């Protein structure tokens, strides 16, 4: 029995339980019905009248329903919806495994900028390197990425607006179909096809466990977490940086957020003793601003060496270097917390924009991302979606 995960409510369900929504636009022919589940998910103050929900008739040999006939108007619908929240599922639901990547971190850590640049890079040079393709699975994803991420950054060359808390603005996730060419021993073209779901979290939503329980439940069901950590918010770093560096406000301490995330996941997984299996990439953002304080031979000054295979050596070198910096700047606490609570974790550093926007929030030099693929590729490798390589010794 194939399982699927709703990209909206993160509930797991059997593919055969997928429901459908009638697509007859004429409410005169097929009267709308108040959809309690949908309205509850979107927190409407009253139930929204919508097209009817239809249960498909599944033959014994069918694993995933592909369409259903409306019992009222007999219209055939291929619009799949989640059996829990009634949100529209990607048409690939039931056939392709969903991988949810949660981007978390304190306010102003650069989460939205990272999402914006990563998705653009996946469509372009990372995609090329991996022989992979990223395609949006719905209009909402296309529009939202275009409007909230791409346009400000690449067209207007401005900082992206602060992400509003899900408490005020519950956003739909960005849902993509990601296909990566597999290399097998027969050299036959084959693809790993997955559904990639990106959740860009508002920093405010990670400030209280109570808010997290309500607004960022998806973290527990993620296939990978990229935890962005703004080094410019670390007092020790701020002291070392040149005086003219534009510094952000100091926000919530990263170890507080890590602790809350650990608690949330352990609460959901109901396993408080075992280390968490979700791979976590603890990543320094805005690394470009640290050039002046990094050692001259630092691997963090070198470009990312990953191609269609994940460079494990590089990953380990970078990880241990960052771990050392962490020790130096914030003490052993974060490292210890990671060691004790996560089975798979690694340290990364990247710069989404490649430079600091000016005081007006303008990106005068445009966007020049640096090592942004590292944590993402590491997550793919950890999920066995790409191969890794080591230098021959």
């Amino acid at each position, binding site marked *: 029995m194939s399982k699927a995960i709703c990209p909206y409510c993160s509930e797991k369900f059997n593919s055969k339980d997928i429901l459908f929504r009638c697509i007859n636009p004429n409410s005169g022919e097929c009267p709308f019905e108040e959809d309690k589940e949908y309205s509850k998910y979107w927190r409407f103050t009253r139930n929204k009248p919508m097209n009817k929900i239809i249960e498909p008739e599944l033959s014994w040999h069918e694993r995933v329903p592909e369409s259903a006939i409306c019992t009222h108007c007999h219209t055939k619908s291929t619009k799949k919806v989640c059996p829990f929240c009634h949100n529209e599922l990607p048409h690939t639901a039931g056939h392709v495994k969903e991988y949810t990547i949660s981007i978390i971190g304190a306010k102003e850590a650069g989460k939205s900028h990272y999402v914006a640049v990563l998705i653009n890079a996946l469509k372009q040079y990372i995609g090329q390197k991996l022989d992979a393709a990223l395609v949006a699975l719905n209009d909402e994803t296309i529009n939202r990425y275009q409007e909230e991420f791409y346009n400000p950054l690449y067209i207007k060359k401005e900082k992206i607006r602060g992400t509003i808390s899900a408490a*005020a603005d519950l956003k739909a996730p960005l849902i993509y179909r990601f296909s990566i060419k597999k290399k097998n021993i027969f050299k036959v073209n084959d693809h790993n096809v997955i559904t990639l779901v990106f959740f860009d979290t508002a920093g405010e939503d990670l400030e209280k466990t109570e808010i997290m329980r309500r607004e960022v439940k998806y973290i527990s069901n993620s296939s990978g977490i990229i935890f962005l950590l703004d080094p410019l918010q670390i007092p020790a770093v701020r002291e070392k940086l040149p005086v003219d560096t534009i510094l952000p406000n100091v926000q919530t301490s990263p170890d507080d957020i890590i602790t809350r995330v650990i608690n949330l996941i352990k609460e959901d997984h109901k396993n408080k003793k075992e280390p968490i299996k979700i791979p976590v990439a603890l990543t320094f953002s805005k690394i470009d601003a640290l050039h002046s304080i990094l050692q001259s031979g630092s691997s963090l000054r070198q470009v990312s060496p990953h191609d269609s295979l994940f460079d494990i050596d590089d990953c380990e070198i970078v990880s241990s270097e960052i771990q050392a910096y962490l020790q130096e700047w914030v003490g052993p606490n974060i490292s210890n917390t990671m060691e004790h609570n996560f089975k798979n974790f690694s340290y990364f550093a990247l710069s989404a924009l490649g430079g600091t926007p000016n005081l007006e929030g303008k990106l005068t030099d445009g966007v020049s991302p640096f090592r942004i693929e590292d944590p993402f590729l590491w997550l793919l490798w950890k999920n066995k979606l790409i191969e890794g390589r080591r230098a021959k010794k």
Partner: protein
Amino acid sequence: MAILQHYYTSCTNKGFQTNAVSEGLDDETTRLLIRIGLYIPPVSMPSQPTKDELKLFPVSFTYSILYDTKFVITNSVYKGQDYSGRYGNYFSHSLITDAFDSAIQNFLPIRLWGSDIWATEETQSNELPSLENLDYGSLINWENIMNFLISESRLESLPYMLTAVIEGLKINKRTIIVDSNTNIALWIGAITSLLPRSLAKRVTFTTYNKNPYSTDVLICGTTADSDFHFLDREVNHEYFVFDFERNLFSEIKDINPFAAIIYGQLKENNLQKLSAFSKFYDEVAYRIPQCKNEIYSMFALFSAADGIFISEDDWQKVIHFMITYDVAVHYPNIAVMCITALGNIRSSEKELVFCVIDLYKKTSNQGINNSIKSKMETILTNSLFLNYSLIATVDDLEIVLEKIKGISLEQVEKELKIKCFDVFLKFKDPAKKSQYFRLLASTKLVIPSLEKLEELLYQGIMPEITEPSTQKLFLETLNTNFRVPFINSFGKYLSSEVLTKNNLSSFPTLSNLAINNLVYSNLVSFTIRESNWSLYCALYSEYVKSKEEKVESFLEFYDNLKKFNLKNETSQELEKAFRATWNAQLPTYDECILITKRIRIEDISKCLFIDSFAEIILHNIHFVDLSSESIEFSEQFMNSQRISEDHQTILKFITKTPTLSGNKEDLEILYQTANKRPFKDRIFYKDIIRLFYRKLLVENKSLQVHENYVEKMIKLSPNEANIHYSSYEESFFYAISEASNVKVSEKVRIFADCFKVWYPLHFQNQVKPNSVPDFLYDKYAKSFYSQKKEIRLNTEKIVCSDSNLEEKWIFFKRETEKGILITINKTVKSIKNRLKLSD
């Protein structure tokens, strides 16, 4: 509950969160307020606006209802950068209460647009006071709204937008307005101020939301570059869209009639009635909350109660409303006003009449006071009987008949009833007239005890009584209390129209109806009461044709005849009735006997048919066994002048017969009479001869007389002799075996006498075998070999009791047995011959 406040913005160094809040606001409600207050700026606006540019951003002024009980107004404005310099910050100020009316009477939410109460800056204190008073803003007032509406032909769009909102409230279909932010506020101002306050209170709205899908307010203002897709299905089906920037509008085919009224009154600049209606609506909707979406019906109700002319369609709505929402219970005074107004309309509209019927049923079930009830009865009578029925088809009236079951209009005033009767009389279509009568009867507008009823039926129903539909009605009434009046009218009609005008051609077509079991007896009573003998006779002649039991009918006729006091004509009428009853046939003997027993002799003796009766009775008389009835009949009839001479003679002889004994003289009388007219040539001859021989053998004991008559017998012509032999034989057999009143010794004597008389004749060959009645052999054999043991023994006993006869008897017996053997041998031979078998 006072008015509580809530601020939400990206707070300094903290990011988006509640900035300040009044005490008493719970977490769940706070979360809802945060969602309502969300502000996403339009895409087309500057992404990094200056302070001046910020003023151009639309204000999201939202009115929502939470849990149907809490009312929220939120003013969200875009702030641009937050403390950290990031863009996307906004400030949302919400007010929440369970009644804004406590702050401002007849509160209209949109009027807080632009009010000074709205905060737009973060506050240092985390606590906000609750509010008691509010001040409206200056933009949304009636003057500005009117100026707004009359410019750029906006007034023309208003009825459509009102329709969208009124209908949207009913079916939960939302309205999307794309216009400038201020215009949207003015549109909302126009709509909500024109609707009754309690209805306007339910119209939730927002002046701006970037993503109309994310909100559930009824009216959602937005911008052309919003997240709304404006798909065909959305514009045509899912939403009411009013995009004034691109002139894209959902098609609204039918303007809501109340919207049309508002539009009309706005054009006339006369809003007084609307304002009065608003109060009325608010009051009714408060008392009967379920009716809140029926604004037009309520307007029609308001108008009707006010005595204003409304169309028949509107009357239907009013009545439907009154029925559905029990107006007569909740607002008896309004119900009275409406019903009074309803009484003034003269409608033939089927639907309206049906509504009136429903309303009557509903109101009469609600124990309303008598004055309303009486008015309703008048209205129903008027609309149904004086208007609708005139144009309705028979089938329509059939439906009405079903619908009005159980309704009584008996109490309506007499004048109205008379009008109904006039209508009834004027109908030309018999089927419709019948149906109308059914309606009248069903509603008790006519009742069986109605004085005028017979007259009404005589004039209205009877002229068409030959019509199948009218006859059907007639038959229907026979099992009801209407039977007697119907039959009386029918009788009157038959006597006056059918018989006196010699219009007899129609009589046979009515005969079936007249002789119906349920009709006939009442009709007969009518003829007797009216002394209408000719009608009675006409009815009788038809009635009797269908009857099997003719005697009963005839006797009934005789009984009724006596009630008519016809004096000397009795026999004549009986004669006619007899002919009508039996036509060309004759009654049977039993029928004759029954009739003669019941009808007085003086009545029947003058009738010609009495001779036929005599003939029939005589035909069935047996002299040997005369019944007392026969004798009685003979005694009664023998002197009738209408009886023929022959019959008289026979009847007289019958009366004499019981006195005749077996002596020689009486025997001779019998013998002679049998040979005389009118007995000789008739069946009586044989019958009298049989009587004669019976008396000769049983009663007369003289052997000489016996021998004399036997000698006479032997000499008779063969034809006559046959009758005599068979009569003698029958009498002998009767005497020695069947006669129960003859002693055994007498039987022996009779047998011996016969033996004495016949034995010599036999041996003298005067009686030849096979050519003479050698009945002694035959009778002996019959007795001897009789299956009945008793007869066998009796015979043996009789013969052996006389020793003188014994010798002759033994010889006789032997001869007889020989004769029988010969007969048997002959029979066996003939059988063998037939079967061609050899011995």
